[in-house]
């Protein structure tokens, strides 16, 4: 699906990522992790064709990404960016239907299939009730879900999320990831998400790519990569990884930087005396 060869990315003279090599196959669920400024968003921008490589190549279905026609690219992959400021008072339905742009004929009218795809996407993201609301008047979380619906309306093979759920509350976060998981399993949708919430990544991603200091430092199955040693080193923070007794899933906990992890918190001590 996506093949990255000796890829270097940057802005002008500033190199952000160097010499990346990896491949994402159809049906994978990949998380991109890394500290702030490690280039997660830069990588997503490059994979979305927004940022041309400084060296190396990105191939989409065997074709150089930069040479793929915009509409074809948008039929293949949809991207949900981090911020989704929309200044014009479109209705939420209109915004979702913009996701049909790459699948509509240039000046063709909206078909029932377009409408159905839009409605289905809104149902999946629980935004159906927002259809006629103005996108400028809904909450930030609602707007983000509308934009996710727009991405789904593109009916892509690959869905890329760039910190797309950061602004959502816990419940909505999980709902979006559950939806991605369901589409991943049932429709074989390839999901790629840049994410800073480690436990969310551990819960849903089956493969993790970890970036640090301009490089890809880890790439492998979540079970192998999501370990105390690796996370502690990457985030320069003592981390403890365990398996949750109820869900059976991996999770990580950070420990205080002072290294005095075992010490009783001050407040508790005060309460005892």
């Amino acid at each position, binding site marked *: 699906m996506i093949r990255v060869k000796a890829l270097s990315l940057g802005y002008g003279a500033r190199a952000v990522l160097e010499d990346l090599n990896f491949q994402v196959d159809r049906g994978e669920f990949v998380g991109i992790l890394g500290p702030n400024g490690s280039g997660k968003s830069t990588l997503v921008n490059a994979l979305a064709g927004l940022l041309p490589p400084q060296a190396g190549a990105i191939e989409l279905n065997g074709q150089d990404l930069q040479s793929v026609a915009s509409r074809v690219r948008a039929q293949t992959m949809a991207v949900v960016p981090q911020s989704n400021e929309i200044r014009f008072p479109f209705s939420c339905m209109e915004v979702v239907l913009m996701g049909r742009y790459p699948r509509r004929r240039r000046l063709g009218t909206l078909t029932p299939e377009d409408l159905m795809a839009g409605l289905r996407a809104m149902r*999946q993201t629980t935004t159906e009730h927002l*259809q006629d609301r103005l996108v400028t008047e809904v909450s930030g979380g609602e707007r983000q879900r509308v934009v996710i619906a727009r991405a789904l309306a593109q009916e892509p093979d690959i869905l890329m999320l760039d910190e797309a759920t950061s602004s959502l509350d816990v419940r909505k976060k999980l709902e979006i990831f559950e939806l991605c998981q369901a589409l991943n399993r049932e429709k074989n949708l390839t999901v790629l998400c840049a994410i800073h919430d480690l436990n969310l990544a551990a819960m849903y991603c089956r493969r993790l790519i970890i970036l640090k200091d301009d490089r890809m430092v880890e790439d492998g199955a979540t079970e192998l990569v999501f370990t105390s040693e690796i996370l502690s080193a990457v985030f320069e923070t003592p981390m403890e990884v365990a398996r949750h007794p109820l869900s059976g899933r991996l999770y990580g906990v950070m420990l205080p930087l002072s290294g005095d992890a075992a010490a009783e918190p001050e407040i508790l001590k005060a309460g005892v005396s």
Partner: protein
Amino acid sequence: MKAEELSALEIQETWDRRRAGSRRFAVTLAVLGLSLAASIGLATAIGRLDLGWGEIAQAFLNKIGLSSFTLDRTGEVIVFHLRFSRAVLAALVGACLAGAGVIFQGLLRNPLADPFTIGVSTGAAFGAALLVVLGIEGAFWGLSALPLGALAGALAALVAVLILSREEGRIRQESLVLAGIVVSTFLSAFISLIKSLDEESLSAIVFWIMGSFSGRGWVHVGFLLPYGLAGLVLAALNYRELDILALGEEQSHYLGVAVSRTRLQLLLAASLLTAAAVSVSGVIGFVGLVVPHLIRILAGPSHGRLLILAALAGGLTLIWADVLSRVILPGGQELPVGVVTALLGGPFFFYLLKTRKGRGVW
């Protein structure tokens, strides 16, 4: 959250709601279209020489073979060669300016953008005025050169403004209008200078800077039409892309819009519309700013509908602004029509800014 399948009823309901939206648009379109036609008719009856409504109506019917009534020679000239042509021209210029305003506002994502505020109108006026001074007034392949000069000026001013307001590869919204004012003021001064050097009368300077339809007729309609139509067609071909571009460059890219090419086409379309308008009427401000706002409030932000309705409303606005400019002074002189639009549009825009800004809605 497993999604159940959509029921036929739900789809039908949504479809019907969209149809209702289309009907509202059709009604608005009809109302504006009829008002425009009626206004052109009414505008021909208003002026210093008082001709009766009935006579004028009869004279129009005569033109299409439904009446045997004819006006006398003077009436004929005043109605058909002065007032009627002038009303048609005002309608076309208004349509072009409002259309250009819709494009600039959407593309630059700036509520204050219009051909006037971002300096493109003045650029066009400068280009046209320069052409006149240089004595290049011929026609090429039947097309007048004047709008071409205006187009060159408009594009040059646009490029200058975009470069001035660019910072780290992005156009800064706050700087855009500022840069527009700088370029516009500078070029206005230049127009005054070259016109003065050319020993032309003050009225020629006022014509370019304040805008006027005084003494304009069918020949100017001919100047405008090819360029105005080209601009409209180019805009119409890209109306859906304009919707998406209004969300921003990044999201447009993700949705599959070929951003650079489309943006270039739309900027060219807006410049063509501006150049077509300015080359026959000089710089008329505020029409391109206020009309798109009003229509957006009335009919929503979808640019396909917005372009059509704003063009009609722009025409309507400018016809009446021109009538006012002809009759408002008691002595019988004409006011530059740009003065009228600024007098009406300024306070109105102030009101728009104050009442709508807080809600984050344009």
